[in-house]
Protein backbone atom coordinates (compact mmCIF):
# COMPACT_ATOMS: atom_id res chain seq x y z
CA UNK A 1 0.00 0.00 0.00
CA UNK A 2 2.87 2.36 0.78
CA UNK A 3 3.99 2.51 -2.84
CA UNK A 4 0.58 3.73 -3.93
CA UNK A 5 0.63 7.32 -2.64
CA UNK A 6 4.12 7.57 -4.03
CA UNK A 7 2.91 6.90 -7.53
CA UNK A 8 0.09 9.37 -7.17
CA UNK A 9 2.46 12.06 -6.03
CA UNK A 10 4.69 11.37 -8.98
CA UNK A 11 1.92 11.87 -11.53
CA UNK A 12 0.93 15.13 -9.87
CA UNK A 13 4.31 16.62 -10.60
CA UNK A 14 3.86 16.55 -14.34
CA UNK A 15 0.82 17.62 -16.33
CA UNK A 16 -1.87 15.18 -17.45
CA UNK A 17 -0.56 12.42 -19.72
CA UNK A 18 -3.38 13.00 -22.25
CA UNK A 19 -6.02 10.67 -23.59
CA UNK A 20 -3.69 8.92 -26.04
CA UNK A 21 -2.04 7.36 -23.02
CA UNK A 22 -4.98 7.19 -20.69
CA UNK A 23 -7.51 5.33 -22.85
CA UNK A 24 -5.35 2.32 -23.74
CA UNK A 25 -4.10 2.17 -20.16
CA UNK A 26 -7.65 2.10 -18.85
CA UNK A 27 -8.44 -0.92 -21.00
CA UNK A 28 -5.50 -2.83 -19.59
CA UNK A 29 -6.23 -1.67 -16.05
CA UNK A 30 -9.83 -2.75 -16.54
CA UNK A 31 -8.76 -6.18 -17.69
CA UNK A 32 -6.48 -6.64 -14.69
CA UNK A 33 -8.43 -4.69 -12.10
CA UNK A 34 -12.02 -5.73 -12.80
CA UNK A 35 -11.48 -9.50 -12.32
CA UNK A 36 -9.62 -8.85 -9.06
CA UNK A 37 -12.37 -6.49 -7.94
CA UNK A 38 -15.03 -9.05 -8.89
CA UNK A 39 -13.16 -11.76 -6.97
CA UNK A 40 -13.08 -9.63 -3.83
CA UNK A 41 -16.66 -8.49 -4.27
CA UNK A 42 -18.06 -11.98 -4.78
CA UNK A 43 -16.13 -13.45 -1.88
CA UNK A 44 -17.18 -10.62 0.40
CA UNK A 45 -20.78 -11.71 -0.15
CA UNK A 46 -20.09 -15.23 0.94
CA UNK A 47 -20.80 -16.25 4.48
CA UNK A 48 -18.66 -19.34 4.42
CA UNK A 49 -15.41 -17.43 4.97
CA UNK A 50 -14.64 -19.02 8.35
CA UNK A 51 -15.40 -22.47 6.97
CA UNK A 52 -12.95 -21.99 4.13
CA UNK A 53 -10.00 -22.34 6.47
CA UNK A 54 -10.35 -26.07 6.54
CA UNK A 55 -7.42 -28.28 7.31
CA UNK A 56 -6.84 -28.91 3.61
CA UNK A 57 -6.79 -25.20 2.81
CA UNK A 58 -4.26 -24.55 5.56
CA UNK A 59 -2.19 -27.53 4.42
CA UNK A 60 -2.18 -26.14 0.89
CA UNK A 61 -1.18 -22.66 2.05
CA UNK A 62 1.63 -24.03 4.21
CA UNK A 63 2.89 -26.20 1.38
CA UNK A 64 2.76 -23.30 -1.08
CA UNK A 65 4.74 -21.01 1.22
CA UNK A 66 7.26 -23.72 2.03
CA UNK A 67 7.88 -24.89 -1.54
CA UNK A 68 7.97 -21.43 -3.09
CA UNK A 69 10.45 -20.21 -0.45
CA UNK A 70 12.63 -23.27 -1.06
CA UNK A 71 12.31 -22.63 -4.78
CA UNK A 72 13.52 -19.05 -4.43
CA UNK A 73 16.47 -20.10 -2.25
CA UNK A 74 17.51 -22.69 -4.84
CA UNK A 75 17.02 -20.13 -7.63
CA UNK A 76 19.20 -17.54 -5.86
CA UNK A 77 21.98 -20.01 -5.04
CA UNK A 78 22.13 -21.47 -8.54
CA UNK A 79 20.72 -18.66 -10.67
CA UNK A 80 22.98 -15.85 -9.48
CA UNK A 81 26.24 -17.61 -10.45
CA UNK A 82 24.71 -18.60 -13.78
CA UNK A 83 23.62 -15.03 -14.47
CA UNK A 84 27.13 -13.84 -13.58
CA UNK A 85 28.68 -16.26 -16.05
CA UNK A 86 26.24 -15.17 -18.74
CA UNK A 87 26.91 -11.48 -18.11
CA UNK A 88 30.69 -11.60 -17.81
CA UNK A 89 32.16 -14.28 -19.95
CA UNK A 90 31.76 -15.11 -23.57
CA UNK A 91 32.31 -18.62 -24.78
CA UNK A 92 31.20 -20.96 -27.51
CA UNK A 93 27.55 -21.87 -27.27
CA UNK A 94 26.73 -18.89 -25.10
CA UNK A 95 23.90 -17.76 -27.36
CA UNK A 96 22.41 -21.23 -27.10
CA UNK A 97 22.77 -21.17 -23.31
CA UNK A 98 21.03 -17.79 -23.11
CA UNK A 99 18.08 -19.04 -25.15
CA UNK A 100 17.85 -22.27 -23.15
CA UNK A 101 17.72 -20.42 -19.85
CA UNK A 102 15.03 -18.04 -21.14
CA UNK A 103 12.97 -20.80 -22.76
CA UNK A 104 10.85 -21.71 -19.69
CA UNK A 105 9.57 -18.10 -19.64
CA UNK A 106 7.79 -18.59 -22.94
CA UNK A 107 6.92 -22.29 -22.56
CA UNK A 108 3.41 -23.19 -21.42
CA UNK A 109 3.66 -24.76 -17.95
CA UNK A 110 2.04 -27.93 -19.25
CA UNK A 111 4.99 -28.40 -21.61
CA UNK A 112 7.30 -27.88 -18.63
CA UNK A 113 5.42 -30.59 -16.72
CA UNK A 114 5.64 -33.07 -19.56
CA UNK A 115 9.34 -32.29 -20.09
CA UNK A 116 10.04 -32.85 -16.39
CA UNK A 117 8.19 -36.18 -16.51
CA UNK A 118 10.16 -37.23 -19.59
CA UNK A 119 13.43 -36.44 -17.79
CA UNK A 120 12.80 -37.33 -14.16
CA UNK A 121 9.68 -39.51 -14.32
CA UNK A 122 10.02 -43.11 -13.25
CA UNK A 123 10.45 -44.18 -16.87
CA UNK A 124 12.19 -40.93 -17.78
CA UNK A 125 15.60 -40.42 -19.32
CA UNK A 126 17.31 -39.91 -15.94
CA UNK A 127 14.47 -40.96 -13.67
CA UNK A 128 15.11 -44.48 -14.89
CA UNK A 129 18.55 -44.54 -13.22
CA UNK A 130 17.27 -42.81 -10.11
CA UNK A 131 14.53 -45.40 -9.88
CA UNK A 132 17.13 -48.16 -9.85
CA UNK A 133 18.79 -46.41 -6.91
CA UNK A 134 15.41 -46.42 -5.19
CA UNK A 135 14.73 -42.72 -5.76
CA UNK A 136 11.41 -41.76 -7.29
CA UNK A 137 10.76 -38.06 -7.81
CA UNK A 138 7.24 -37.71 -9.29
CA UNK A 139 4.41 -37.20 -6.78
CA UNK A 140 6.77 -35.89 -4.09
CA UNK A 141 7.23 -32.44 -2.58
CA UNK A 142 10.66 -32.38 -4.25
CA UNK A 143 8.83 -32.63 -7.59
CA UNK A 144 6.75 -29.57 -6.64
CA UNK A 145 9.90 -27.54 -5.96
CA UNK A 146 11.54 -28.79 -9.16
CA UNK A 147 8.52 -27.75 -11.22
CA UNK A 148 8.53 -24.33 -9.55
CA UNK A 149 12.26 -23.83 -10.12
CA UNK A 150 11.91 -24.87 -13.77
CA UNK A 151 9.26 -22.26 -14.50
CA UNK A 152 10.34 -19.45 -12.16
CA UNK A 153 14.15 -19.44 -11.88
CA UNK A 154 14.61 -18.06 -15.43
CA UNK A 155 12.86 -14.87 -14.32
CA UNK A 156 15.49 -14.41 -11.62
CA UNK A 157 18.39 -15.32 -13.88
CA UNK A 158 17.19 -12.93 -16.56
CA UNK A 159 16.78 -10.04 -14.17
CA UNK A 160 20.11 -10.57 -12.40
CA UNK A 161 21.91 -11.06 -15.72
CA UNK A 162 20.72 -7.65 -16.90
CA UNK A 163 21.80 -6.21 -13.53
CA UNK A 164 25.30 -7.64 -13.82
CA UNK A 165 25.63 -6.65 -17.46
CA UNK A 166 24.84 -3.01 -16.72
CA UNK A 167 27.78 -2.68 -14.33
CA UNK A 168 30.74 -0.80 -15.81
CA UNK A 169 33.33 -3.44 -16.78
CA UNK A 170 36.13 -1.05 -15.79
CA UNK A 171 35.18 -1.56 -12.15
CA UNK A 172 35.90 -5.24 -12.52
CA UNK A 173 39.24 -4.61 -14.23
CA UNK A 174 40.32 -2.03 -11.67
CA UNK A 175 39.61 -4.42 -8.82
CA UNK A 176 41.49 -7.22 -10.58
CA UNK A 177 44.49 -4.91 -11.03
CA UNK A 178 44.37 -4.28 -7.29
CA UNK A 179 44.71 -8.03 -6.87
CA UNK A 180 41.14 -8.96 -5.95
CA UNK A 181 40.05 -12.50 -6.75
CA UNK A 182 37.08 -13.29 -8.98
CA UNK A 183 35.04 -14.29 -5.95
CA UNK A 184 36.06 -11.15 -4.09
CA UNK A 185 34.96 -8.92 -6.95
CA UNK A 186 31.67 -10.79 -7.18
CA UNK A 187 30.99 -10.64 -3.46
CA UNK A 188 32.04 -7.06 -2.70
CA UNK A 189 31.45 -5.17 -5.93
CA UNK A 190 29.16 -6.99 -8.33
CA UNK A 191 26.58 -8.39 -5.96
CA UNK A 192 25.93 -5.11 -4.07
CA UNK A 193 25.68 -3.21 -7.35
CA UNK A 194 23.25 -5.74 -8.79
CA UNK A 195 21.21 -6.09 -5.62
CA UNK A 196 18.25 -4.20 -7.02
CA UNK A 197 18.10 -6.44 -10.05
CA UNK A 198 18.36 -9.40 -7.70
CA UNK A 199 15.39 -8.21 -5.63
CA UNK A 200 13.36 -7.66 -8.79
CA UNK A 201 14.30 -11.16 -9.88
CA UNK A 202 13.27 -12.55 -6.49
CA UNK A 203 9.87 -10.81 -6.72
CA UNK A 204 9.22 -12.19 -10.19
CA UNK A 205 10.35 -15.73 -9.47
CA UNK A 206 8.76 -16.02 -6.03
CA UNK A 207 5.34 -14.87 -7.17
CA UNK A 208 5.61 -17.05 -10.27
CA UNK A 209 6.48 -20.05 -8.09
CA UNK A 210 3.58 -19.31 -5.75
CA UNK A 211 1.16 -19.35 -8.68
CA UNK A 212 2.62 -22.40 -10.43
CA UNK A 213 -0.13 -24.79 -11.49
CA UNK A 214 0.31 -26.65 -14.78
CA UNK A 215 3.77 -28.11 -14.36
CA UNK A 216 3.07 -29.06 -10.73
CA UNK A 217 -0.13 -30.87 -11.65
CA UNK A 218 1.56 -32.89 -14.38
CA UNK A 219 4.85 -33.66 -12.65
CA UNK A 220 3.94 -33.72 -8.96
CA UNK A 221 0.27 -34.66 -9.06
CA UNK A 222 -2.29 -33.60 -6.50
CA UNK A 223 -2.14 -34.98 -2.96
CA UNK A 224 -3.11 -33.00 0.09
CA UNK A 225 -0.23 -32.08 2.38
CA UNK A 226 2.35 -33.40 -0.04
CA UNK A 227 1.90 -31.92 -3.49
CA UNK A 228 -1.40 -30.00 -3.34
CA UNK A 229 -0.32 -26.34 -3.43
CA UNK A 230 -2.75 -23.40 -3.27
CA UNK A 231 -3.37 -23.15 -7.02
CA UNK A 232 -4.21 -26.87 -7.13
CA UNK A 233 -6.44 -26.60 -4.07
CA UNK A 234 -8.23 -23.72 -5.78
CA UNK A 235 -8.81 -25.76 -8.91
CA UNK A 236 -10.09 -28.76 -6.97
CA UNK A 237 -12.16 -26.43 -4.79
CA UNK A 238 -13.69 -24.91 -7.91
CA UNK A 239 -14.99 -28.34 -8.81
CA UNK A 240 -16.52 -28.80 -5.38
CA UNK A 241 -18.16 -25.42 -5.19
CA UNK A 242 -17.50 -21.87 -6.21
CA UNK A 243 -17.45 -20.62 -2.60
CA UNK A 244 -14.40 -22.55 -1.46
CA UNK A 245 -12.49 -21.68 -4.62
CA UNK A 246 -13.35 -17.99 -4.24
CA UNK A 247 -12.16 -17.79 -0.68
CA UNK A 248 -8.95 -19.71 -1.42
CA UNK A 249 -8.33 -17.40 -4.37
CA UNK A 250 -8.66 -14.37 -2.15
CA UNK A 251 -6.25 -15.90 0.36
CA UNK A 252 -3.68 -16.50 -2.38
CA UNK A 253 -4.31 -13.00 -3.71
CA UNK A 254 -3.63 -11.50 -0.28
CA UNK A 255 -0.49 -13.58 0.26
CA UNK A 256 0.87 -12.63 -3.18
CA UNK A 257 -0.01 -8.99 -2.57
CA UNK A 258 1.75 -8.88 0.80
CA UNK A 259 4.81 -10.57 -0.68
CA UNK A 260 4.85 -8.16 -3.60
CA UNK A 261 4.51 -5.07 -1.41
CA UNK A 262 7.17 -6.25 1.05
CA UNK A 263 9.66 -6.98 -1.70
CA UNK A 264 8.85 -3.77 -3.58
CA UNK A 265 9.55 -1.75 -0.47
CA UNK A 266 12.90 -3.46 -0.26
CA UNK A 267 13.44 -2.64 -3.92
CA UNK A 268 12.55 1.03 -3.49
CA UNK A 269 14.64 1.37 -0.33
CA UNK A 270 17.57 0.01 -2.23
CA UNK A 271 17.13 2.66 -4.87
CA UNK A 272 18.24 5.44 -2.56
Amino acid sequence: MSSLPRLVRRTKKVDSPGWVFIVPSLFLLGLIGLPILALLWRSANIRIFPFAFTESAINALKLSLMTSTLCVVVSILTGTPLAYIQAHWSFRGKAFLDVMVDLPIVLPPSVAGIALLMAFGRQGLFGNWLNELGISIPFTTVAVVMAQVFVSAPFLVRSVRIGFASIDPQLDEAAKVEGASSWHVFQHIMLPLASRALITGIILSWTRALGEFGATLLFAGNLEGKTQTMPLAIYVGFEQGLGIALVLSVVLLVVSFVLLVALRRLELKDQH
Partner: protein
Amino acid sequence: MNIKKGNILIVLAVVLILIACAPILNKIVGAQNMIRSSDQESPPDRALTVFAAASLTDAFKDLGREFEAAHPGVQINFSFAGSQVLRMQLEQGASADLFASADYKNMDLLISEGLIVPNSDQDFTINQMVVILPPDNPGNLKILNELSMTHIKLILADPSVPAGNYARQVLTRMSMDPAFGEDFISAVLANVVSNEIDVRQVVTKVELGEADAGIVYLSDVVAVPGLITIPIPEGFNILTRYPIAVLRASPHPDLAGEFIAYLVSPAGQAIMESWGFTTGE
Protein backbone atom coordinates in the same frame (compact mmCIF):
# COMPACT_ATOMS: atom_id res chain seq x y z
CA MET B 1 -10.45 21.92 -15.41
CA ASN B 2 -11.07 21.21 -19.05
CA ILE B 3 -8.68 18.30 -19.02
CA LYS B 4 -10.32 16.83 -15.94
CA LYS B 5 -13.74 17.00 -17.56
CA GLY B 6 -12.27 15.26 -20.60
CA ASN B 7 -10.88 12.53 -18.39
CA ILE B 8 -14.25 11.83 -16.86
CA LEU B 9 -15.83 11.64 -20.31
CA ILE B 10 -13.21 9.15 -21.41
CA VAL B 11 -13.80 7.01 -18.34
CA LEU B 12 -17.53 7.08 -19.07
CA ALA B 13 -16.92 6.17 -22.70
CA VAL B 14 -14.76 3.21 -21.70
CA VAL B 15 -17.34 2.00 -19.22
CA LEU B 16 -20.05 2.25 -21.90
CA ILE B 17 -17.91 0.35 -24.39
CA LEU B 18 -17.30 -2.35 -21.80
CA ILE B 19 -21.01 -2.63 -21.09
CA ALA B 20 -21.74 -2.83 -24.81
CA CYS B 21 -19.10 -5.53 -25.15
CA ALA B 22 -20.48 -7.62 -22.30
CA PRO B 23 -22.53 -10.04 -24.46
CA ILE B 24 -19.54 -10.55 -26.76
CA LEU B 25 -17.28 -11.17 -23.77
CA ASN B 26 -19.78 -13.71 -22.54
CA LYS B 27 -19.58 -15.52 -25.85
CA ILE B 28 -15.80 -15.55 -25.74
CA VAL B 29 -15.89 -17.11 -22.30
CA GLY B 30 -18.30 -19.75 -23.52
CA ALA B 31 -16.13 -20.58 -26.50
CA GLN B 32 -13.09 -21.59 -24.52
CA ASN B 33 -11.27 -24.86 -25.18
CA MET B 34 -13.51 -25.85 -28.05
CA ILE B 35 -12.45 -28.76 -30.14
CA ARG B 36 -13.62 -28.88 -33.71
CA SER B 37 -14.45 -32.34 -34.85
CA SER B 38 -13.55 -31.47 -38.42
CA ASP B 39 -11.69 -28.76 -40.28
CA GLN B 40 -14.23 -27.42 -42.69
CA GLU B 41 -13.07 -24.59 -44.90
CA SER B 42 -16.48 -23.15 -45.70
CA PRO B 43 -18.38 -21.67 -42.79
CA PRO B 44 -21.00 -24.11 -41.51
CA ASP B 45 -24.71 -23.32 -41.76
CA ARG B 46 -25.30 -24.52 -38.24
CA ALA B 47 -22.87 -25.24 -35.43
CA LEU B 48 -23.79 -27.53 -32.57
CA THR B 49 -21.89 -27.09 -29.33
CA VAL B 50 -21.60 -30.16 -27.14
CA PHE B 51 -20.23 -30.09 -23.59
CA ALA B 52 -19.24 -33.65 -22.80
CA ALA B 53 -17.53 -35.51 -19.94
CA ALA B 54 -13.82 -36.15 -20.46
CA SER B 55 -14.43 -39.92 -20.57
CA LEU B 56 -16.53 -39.45 -23.73
CA THR B 57 -13.71 -37.78 -25.67
CA ASP B 58 -12.84 -40.50 -28.19
CA ALA B 59 -16.34 -41.90 -28.63
CA PHE B 60 -17.95 -38.49 -29.17
CA LYS B 61 -15.29 -37.30 -31.62
CA ASP B 62 -16.02 -40.43 -33.62
CA LEU B 63 -19.78 -39.88 -33.35
CA GLY B 64 -19.37 -36.23 -34.30
CA ARG B 65 -17.63 -37.11 -37.55
CA GLU B 66 -20.41 -39.53 -38.48
CA PHE B 67 -23.12 -37.04 -37.57
CA GLU B 68 -21.49 -34.29 -39.63
CA ALA B 69 -21.18 -36.64 -42.60
CA ALA B 70 -24.91 -37.38 -42.38
CA HIS B 71 -25.83 -33.69 -41.91
CA PRO B 72 -24.09 -31.51 -44.53
CA GLY B 73 -23.55 -27.94 -43.38
CA VAL B 74 -23.53 -28.92 -39.72
CA GLN B 75 -20.45 -28.55 -37.62
CA ILE B 76 -20.07 -29.97 -34.13
CA ASN B 77 -17.84 -28.27 -31.58
CA PHE B 78 -16.94 -30.31 -28.53
CA SER B 79 -15.73 -29.11 -25.19
CA PHE B 80 -14.42 -32.02 -23.13
CA ALA B 81 -13.65 -31.65 -19.43
CA GLY B 82 -14.63 -33.11 -16.08
CA SER B 83 -18.45 -33.08 -15.78
CA GLN B 84 -18.23 -30.84 -12.73
CA VAL B 85 -16.10 -28.30 -14.63
CA LEU B 86 -18.55 -28.21 -17.54
CA ARG B 87 -21.51 -27.88 -15.17
CA MET B 88 -19.78 -24.93 -13.49
CA GLN B 89 -19.10 -23.29 -16.87
CA LEU B 90 -22.74 -23.70 -17.90
CA GLU B 91 -23.87 -22.21 -14.60
CA GLN B 92 -21.61 -19.24 -15.29
CA GLY B 93 -23.30 -18.64 -18.62
CA ALA B 94 -21.26 -20.66 -21.12
CA SER B 95 -23.32 -21.22 -24.26
CA ALA B 96 -23.89 -24.78 -25.46
CA ASP B 97 -26.58 -26.95 -27.05
CA LEU B 98 -26.02 -30.24 -25.28
CA PHE B 99 -24.57 -31.45 -22.01
CA ALA B 100 -23.45 -35.06 -21.63
CA SER B 101 -22.50 -35.84 -18.03
CA ALA B 102 -20.65 -38.78 -16.51
CA ASP B 103 -23.00 -38.74 -13.55
CA TYR B 104 -26.46 -37.69 -12.39
CA LYS B 105 -25.19 -35.30 -9.74
CA ASN B 106 -24.10 -32.62 -12.19
CA MET B 107 -27.07 -33.16 -14.52
CA ASP B 108 -29.54 -32.95 -11.62
CA LEU B 109 -27.98 -29.70 -10.44
CA LEU B 110 -28.51 -28.13 -13.86
CA ILE B 111 -32.07 -29.45 -14.00
CA SER B 112 -32.87 -27.98 -10.59
CA GLU B 113 -31.40 -24.68 -11.72
CA GLY B 114 -33.71 -24.65 -14.73
CA LEU B 115 -30.90 -24.68 -17.30
CA ILE B 116 -32.10 -27.88 -19.01
CA VAL B 117 -35.03 -28.19 -21.41
CA PRO B 118 -37.59 -30.06 -19.26
CA ASN B 119 -37.68 -33.83 -19.86
CA SER B 120 -35.00 -33.64 -22.56
CA ASP B 121 -32.56 -35.63 -20.43
CA GLN B 122 -32.08 -39.30 -21.09
CA ASP B 123 -29.51 -42.04 -20.42
CA PHE B 124 -27.53 -43.02 -23.47
CA THR B 125 -24.76 -45.32 -22.33
CA ILE B 126 -23.25 -47.24 -19.44
CA ASN B 127 -19.65 -47.32 -18.29
CA GLN B 128 -17.86 -49.36 -15.64
CA MET B 129 -14.65 -49.20 -13.67
CA VAL B 130 -11.48 -51.20 -14.26
CA VAL B 131 -8.01 -51.36 -12.70
CA ILE B 132 -5.22 -50.45 -15.12
CA LEU B 133 -1.49 -51.22 -14.93
CA PRO B 134 1.40 -49.87 -17.04
CA PRO B 135 2.46 -52.11 -19.96
CA ASP B 136 5.50 -53.45 -18.05
CA ASN B 137 3.63 -53.85 -14.75
CA PRO B 138 6.32 -52.37 -12.45
CA GLY B 139 4.32 -53.16 -9.32
CA ASN B 140 4.04 -56.80 -10.40
CA LEU B 141 0.32 -56.81 -9.66
CA LYS B 142 -1.75 -59.86 -10.54
CA ILE B 143 -4.90 -59.75 -8.46
CA LEU B 144 -7.03 -57.01 -6.94
CA ASN B 145 -6.06 -57.94 -3.35
CA GLU B 146 -2.50 -56.83 -4.09
CA LEU B 147 -3.60 -53.20 -4.45
CA SER B 148 -3.22 -52.90 -0.67
CA MET B 149 0.45 -53.97 -0.64
CA THR B 150 2.56 -51.16 0.81
CA HIS B 151 4.95 -50.71 -2.12
CA ILE B 152 2.17 -50.05 -4.63
CA LYS B 153 1.77 -46.53 -6.04
CA LEU B 154 -1.83 -45.91 -6.98
CA ILE B 155 -3.36 -42.97 -8.85
CA LEU B 156 -7.05 -42.17 -8.60
CA ALA B 157 -9.16 -39.30 -9.85
CA ASP B 158 -9.96 -36.72 -7.18
CA PRO B 159 -13.06 -37.52 -5.08
CA SER B 160 -14.75 -34.45 -6.62
CA VAL B 161 -14.45 -36.04 -10.09
CA PRO B 162 -17.11 -38.71 -10.86
CA ALA B 163 -14.47 -41.33 -11.71
CA GLY B 164 -12.71 -40.68 -8.39
CA ASN B 165 -15.95 -40.99 -6.52
CA TYR B 166 -16.80 -44.29 -8.27
CA ALA B 167 -13.32 -45.70 -7.64
CA ARG B 168 -13.80 -45.12 -3.91
CA GLN B 169 -17.24 -46.71 -4.05
CA VAL B 170 -15.70 -49.79 -5.67
CA LEU B 171 -13.08 -49.97 -2.90
CA THR B 172 -15.79 -49.60 -0.26
CA ARG B 173 -17.73 -52.49 -1.76
CA MET B 174 -14.60 -54.65 -1.82
CA SER B 175 -13.91 -53.86 1.84
CA MET B 176 -17.31 -55.21 2.77
CA ASP B 177 -16.30 -58.61 1.39
CA PRO B 178 -14.32 -60.84 3.78
CA ALA B 179 -12.05 -61.84 0.89
CA PHE B 180 -10.56 -58.33 1.04
CA GLY B 181 -11.24 -57.40 4.65
CA GLU B 182 -12.41 -54.25 6.38
CA ASP B 183 -8.99 -52.61 6.30
CA PHE B 184 -8.64 -53.02 2.55
CA ILE B 185 -9.93 -49.56 1.61
CA SER B 186 -7.75 -47.67 4.09
CA ALA B 187 -4.67 -49.66 3.03
CA VAL B 188 -5.39 -48.95 -0.64
CA LEU B 189 -6.11 -45.26 -0.09
CA ALA B 190 -2.80 -44.97 1.80
CA ASN B 191 -1.10 -46.04 -1.45
CA VAL B 192 -2.61 -43.15 -3.41
CA VAL B 193 0.18 -40.86 -4.65
CA SER B 194 -2.05 -38.43 -6.53
CA ASN B 195 -5.70 -37.43 -6.92
CA GLU B 196 -5.86 -36.33 -10.54
CA ILE B 197 -8.31 -33.66 -11.62
CA ASP B 198 -9.71 -35.63 -14.49
CA VAL B 199 -9.82 -39.30 -15.30
CA ARG B 200 -7.71 -38.99 -18.46
CA GLN B 201 -4.78 -37.77 -16.39
CA VAL B 202 -4.92 -41.02 -14.43
CA VAL B 203 -4.73 -43.03 -17.66
CA THR B 204 -1.82 -40.99 -19.05
CA LYS B 205 0.26 -41.20 -15.89
CA VAL B 206 -0.27 -44.94 -15.52
CA GLU B 207 0.52 -45.37 -19.23
CA LEU B 208 3.79 -43.46 -18.64
CA GLY B 209 4.57 -45.88 -15.83
CA GLU B 210 4.70 -43.16 -13.19
CA ALA B 211 2.44 -45.23 -10.96
CA ASP B 212 1.82 -48.95 -10.55
CA ALA B 213 -1.95 -48.85 -10.93
CA GLY B 214 -4.97 -46.66 -11.46
CA ILE B 215 -8.74 -47.09 -11.38
CA VAL B 216 -10.50 -45.66 -14.44
CA TYR B 217 -13.44 -46.27 -16.76
CA LEU B 218 -13.35 -49.29 -19.01
CA SER B 219 -13.93 -46.89 -21.92
CA ASP B 220 -10.65 -45.11 -21.14
CA VAL B 221 -8.68 -48.25 -21.85
CA VAL B 222 -9.76 -48.78 -25.47
CA ALA B 223 -7.68 -45.88 -26.79
CA VAL B 224 -4.54 -47.11 -24.98
CA PRO B 225 -3.85 -50.64 -26.27
CA GLY B 226 -0.69 -51.30 -24.21
CA LEU B 227 -2.30 -51.08 -20.80
CA ILE B 228 -2.83 -54.18 -18.69
CA THR B 229 -6.26 -54.37 -17.10
CA ILE B 230 -7.60 -56.24 -14.09
CA PRO B 231 -11.39 -56.47 -14.34
CA ILE B 232 -13.47 -55.59 -11.32
CA PRO B 233 -16.08 -58.31 -10.68
CA GLU B 234 -19.71 -57.34 -11.19
CA GLY B 235 -20.53 -57.53 -7.49
CA PHE B 236 -18.03 -54.77 -6.67
CA ASN B 237 -18.23 -52.74 -9.86
CA ILE B 238 -20.20 -49.55 -10.31
CA LEU B 239 -22.22 -49.27 -13.49
CA THR B 240 -22.48 -45.61 -14.32
CA ARG B 241 -25.23 -44.29 -16.52
CA TYR B 242 -24.47 -41.25 -18.64
CA PRO B 243 -27.30 -38.76 -19.15
CA ILE B 244 -27.43 -36.24 -22.01
CA ALA B 245 -29.81 -33.27 -22.23
CA VAL B 246 -30.61 -30.22 -24.34
CA LEU B 247 -29.77 -26.91 -22.70
CA ARG B 248 -32.43 -24.29 -22.44
CA ALA B 249 -30.06 -21.71 -23.95
CA SER B 250 -29.47 -23.93 -26.99
CA PRO B 251 -29.59 -21.95 -30.25
CA HIS B 252 -30.49 -25.14 -32.18
CA PRO B 253 -32.73 -27.33 -30.01
CA ASP B 254 -34.02 -29.28 -33.04
CA LEU B 255 -30.54 -30.16 -34.21
CA ALA B 256 -29.59 -31.02 -30.63
CA GLY B 257 -32.56 -33.42 -30.55
CA GLU B 258 -31.34 -35.00 -33.78
CA PHE B 259 -27.92 -35.56 -32.23
CA ILE B 260 -29.49 -37.36 -29.26
CA ALA B 261 -31.63 -39.44 -31.64
CA TYR B 262 -28.50 -40.45 -33.54
CA LEU B 263 -26.67 -41.19 -30.30
CA VAL B 264 -29.30 -43.66 -29.10
CA SER B 265 -29.86 -45.21 -32.56
CA PRO B 266 -28.26 -48.61 -33.26
CA ALA B 267 -25.55 -46.89 -35.34
CA GLY B 268 -24.71 -44.49 -32.53
CA GLN B 269 -24.74 -47.22 -29.90
CA ALA B 270 -22.40 -49.32 -32.07
CA ILE B 271 -19.85 -46.50 -31.99
CA MET B 272 -20.23 -46.20 -28.22
CA GLU B 273 -19.64 -49.93 -27.84
CA SER B 274 -16.55 -49.80 -30.03
CA TRP B 275 -15.08 -47.41 -27.45
CA GLY B 276 -15.72 -49.68 -24.48
CA PHE B 277 -19.14 -48.44 -23.39
CA THR B 278 -22.05 -50.81 -22.94
CA THR B 279 -25.69 -50.42 -23.82
CA GLY B 280 -28.47 -50.79 -21.28
CA GLU B 281 -29.60 -54.26 -20.28
